[in-house]
């Protein structure tokens, strides 16, 4: 008889484990050197706590009942539990709070896609540092951590998660159409996006902006072209790029005005991490200034998470190519 394990989970055996631990340790020591203290949170949380994350973060992959009939769920990332920790265990603190973690999380994935339902994330959360200063610190540490893990050619995508929504509102696109247009962008279906924008019957310049802006990605030149009502968001990205230049990591940055993340709590800048040797993102993050306020006193915050197994895949692919 074959005793199976659930789809999207894996057993890790000693050879792989040794390499995974080595990578995890390098990520962890990069975070520690930058002043981030490691935390653990419960593997299971009350479902309603995780649901406060909204969007995909709130849609737990596994739920269960405890002995009192309360609904528990496995976290889909560490950001929501850490937001709860920041708002409750550090309720009185007002200086910046720097926390890091290395823990398993669980997400819903499509059947047959080869994605993991259970995955190991290492990441950081920077609480109480608003604006581009916080974002630049988090990105700088992520770039260093990937270098410590053995990557050399990694890049960071930087965008603004609320950009397109604000653009739709500013161009007076009817609110009932927003969801459809944002869905096209999330699904990366630019053909459907263009058709849906055409149906709106907007003036030519507004139409072109809605079609063309989310396709702009590259160096700082993507911020130079006109952005109409999105100009303010572009100014913020320009400031962030300046901060990243001063940190010496500007050449790693891809400014991406079409970048959207599925998680529901992002309020501003969003990030993704790439390596040319692999075809998927190694991790991501962003600014979530409203999440902590759902558990207590509001505080600005941002963070980034790395998928340790994916970093491992990228590191072995880089080894083979060099």
């Amino acid at each position: 008889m074959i005793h199976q394990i659930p789809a999207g989970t894996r057993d890790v055996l000693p050879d792989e484990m040794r390499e995974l631990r080595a990578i995890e340790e390098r990520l962890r020591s990069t975070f520690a050197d930058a002043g981030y203290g490691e935390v653990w949170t419960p593997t299971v949380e009350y479902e309603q706590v995780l649901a406060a994350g909204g969007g995909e973060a709130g849609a737990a992959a596994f739920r269960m009942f405890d002995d009192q009939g309360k609904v528990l769920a496995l976290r889909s990332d560490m950001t929501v539990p850490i937001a709860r920790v920041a708002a409750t265990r550090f309720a009185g603190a007002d200086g910046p709070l720097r926390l890091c973690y290395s823990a398993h999380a669980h997400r819903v994935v499509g059947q047959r896609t080869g994605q993991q339902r259970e995955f190991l994330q290492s990441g950081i959360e920077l609480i109480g540092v608003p604006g581009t200063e916080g974002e630049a610190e988090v990105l700088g540490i992520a770039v260093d951590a990937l270098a410590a893990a053995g990557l050399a050619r990694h890049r960071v995508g930087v965008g603004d998660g609320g950009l397109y929504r604000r653009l739709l509102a500013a161009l007076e696109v009817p609110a009932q159409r927003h969801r459809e247009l944002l869905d096209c962008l999330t699904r990366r279906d630019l053909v459907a996006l263009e058709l849906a924008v055409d149906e709106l019957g907007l003036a030519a310049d507004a139409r072109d902006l809605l079609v063309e802006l989310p396709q702009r990605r590259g160096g700082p030149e993507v911020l130079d072209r006109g952005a109409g009502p999105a100009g303010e968001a572009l100014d913020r990205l320009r400031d962030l790029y300046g901060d990243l230049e001063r940190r010496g990591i500007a050449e790693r940055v891809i400014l991406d005005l079409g970048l959207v993340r599925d998680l529901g709590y992002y309020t501003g800048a969003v990030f993704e991490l790439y390596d040319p040797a692999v075809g998927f993102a190694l991790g991501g993050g962003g600014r979530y200034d409203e999440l902590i306020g759902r558990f207590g006193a509001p505080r600005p915050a941002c963070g980034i998470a790395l998928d340790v197994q994916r970093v491992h895949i990228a590191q072995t692919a880089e080894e083979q190519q060099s």
Partner: protein
Amino acid sequence: MNATGLTIAVPRGALMGGTLDLLDGLGVDTAEVRANDRKLLFEEAGIVTVRPSDVPTYVEHGAADIGVTGKDVLLESPEREVYELLDLGYGRCDMVVARRSGDDAIGESLRRLGRARIATKYTRIAAAHFAATGRQVELVAVKGAVELAPLTGMVDGIVDLTATGRTLAENGLEVVESIVTCTARLIANPVAHKLKAAEIDAVVARLREEAR
């Protein structure tokens, strides 16, 4: 590597000719691909040839930076994380509901049995279509020659892709509903879309120019 600087997944079968013509227009040397039907990997031309339904898989995993496949394939594999960049216009087909000419087997089954039996290779598209139109169906997944299924009485109708409707007519079937029109699409790997943005945008711009 070819003139575009990108690895390209080319679909074998009906879309292959149109796709190779397109690549010629981009300055990619496709002579070897055209001359050699059995070979699959053309490293010098930066081309891999795969089944249309495998194109999203190769592109999602980054084995190819960009690729061409039918909209039907993309609708049938929505979990694949790829960018859909451009409607290339060729390979135009309709996804249709068809039944045996002369009687209304689908309607009769729905009325008397509460559900119709439908054979298809496109179970996701078919399920979504009947759910959206409020009808209960039992889908029968088949691999080839779907036209046979209603003739044997196994099912009441089929959902299939048709370009001219000739095969359907030759088998005594008639189209009763059109679900969606499918054409060839240019798709891209999400990471390549960021890391090779200039190369991909150049391809898209050239193809848009030609389509005018």
